[in-house]
């Protein structure tokens, strides 16, 4: 592993008791959600990871504790290194601190995670839906949300499907 990255990861482990995982040459730090704000400001100020490339989430549905992993991708332009941080959240009313004050680019990304997964971000300046219409019910990318698949029309079920399909009122 790169020496500098090693230093950064050990410092984080010491301070926030993170866990390290490696896969195919990429390093991820697993952290508790309470520490995410302090971890990311430490990583930005002391170790120059200035760019937050992505905030996203993964849903492990039948598993309740933890159900969501919020994933942050960080990049340091000076040292050309990538770091991956994951925060584990439980299923009922998941909430985590917003990192918008540290990285302004997290604004829209956190809105997208809120829209598609239902994870709320405390302290976000403008938490509204971004991809789905404003009055949509439900959070589509959760694993218990259905795909909304329409059955393929063949000749044998053509009429049934045509009955249920909305037609334009002219």
């Amino acid at each position, binding site marked *: 592993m790169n020496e500098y990255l090693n230093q950064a990861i050990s410092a984080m482990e010491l301070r926030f008791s993170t866990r390290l995982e490696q896969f195919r040459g990429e390093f991820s730090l697993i952290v508790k959600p309470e520490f995410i704000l302090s971890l990311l400001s430490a990583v930005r100020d002391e170790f120059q990871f200035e760019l937050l490339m992505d905030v996203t989430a993964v849903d492990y549905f039948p598993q309740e504790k933890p159900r969501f992993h919020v994933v942050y991708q960080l990049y340091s332009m000076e040292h050309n290194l990538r770091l991956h941080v994951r925060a584990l959240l439980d299923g009922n009313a998941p909430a985590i601190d917003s990192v918008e004050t540290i990285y302004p680019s997290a604004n829209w990304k956190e809105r997208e995670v809120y829209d598609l997964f239902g994870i709320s971000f405390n302290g976000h300046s403008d938490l509204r839906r971004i991809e*789905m*219409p404003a009055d*949509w019910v439900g959070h*589509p990318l959760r694993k218990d949300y*259905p795909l909304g698949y*329409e059955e393929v029309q063949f000749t044998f079920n053509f009429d049934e499907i045509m009955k249920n*399909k*909305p037609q*334009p009122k*002219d």
Partner: protein
Amino acid sequence: MGVEQKTGNLGIVTAKLEQVVNWSRTGSMWPILFGLACCAIEMMGAQAANNDMSRFGMELNRASPRQSDLMFVAGRVSRKMAPVVRRLYDQMPAPKWVIAIGDCASCGGVFNNYAILQGVDEIIPVDIYIAGCPPRPEAIIHGVLTLHDKVRQERLKDWA
């Protein structure tokens, strides 16, 4: 026979009113500028230099729906966009026609999920469907010419 020759020499032509009206409608059908996704790029390609749609009368794309006759729905229509499409269709004055370009506008295409309308004919009546993902510019022009054929068969009282 003799009468028509004589009037032809004088510069008078006789025809049914329907034929003249339909011919003029096909001669300069102005589309609304409404490209949504990938099919819009092929629509722009069909209007550009290599395949030129202005030779069929579609010289300009009007930005305002109130000044256009034809709506090309080019691309996938999502649930958020659907009321906008319907409102634009309602704002177009009659006579108006709709061509659904591509698979996503005709039937939902590759995307069979919560976010995409399975065909724009769920909200507006469509005259011509052009298949392809995206269809070649030649296919789009073929669709336009088929619409011209359809318009030539129309009766005056359809749009009266």
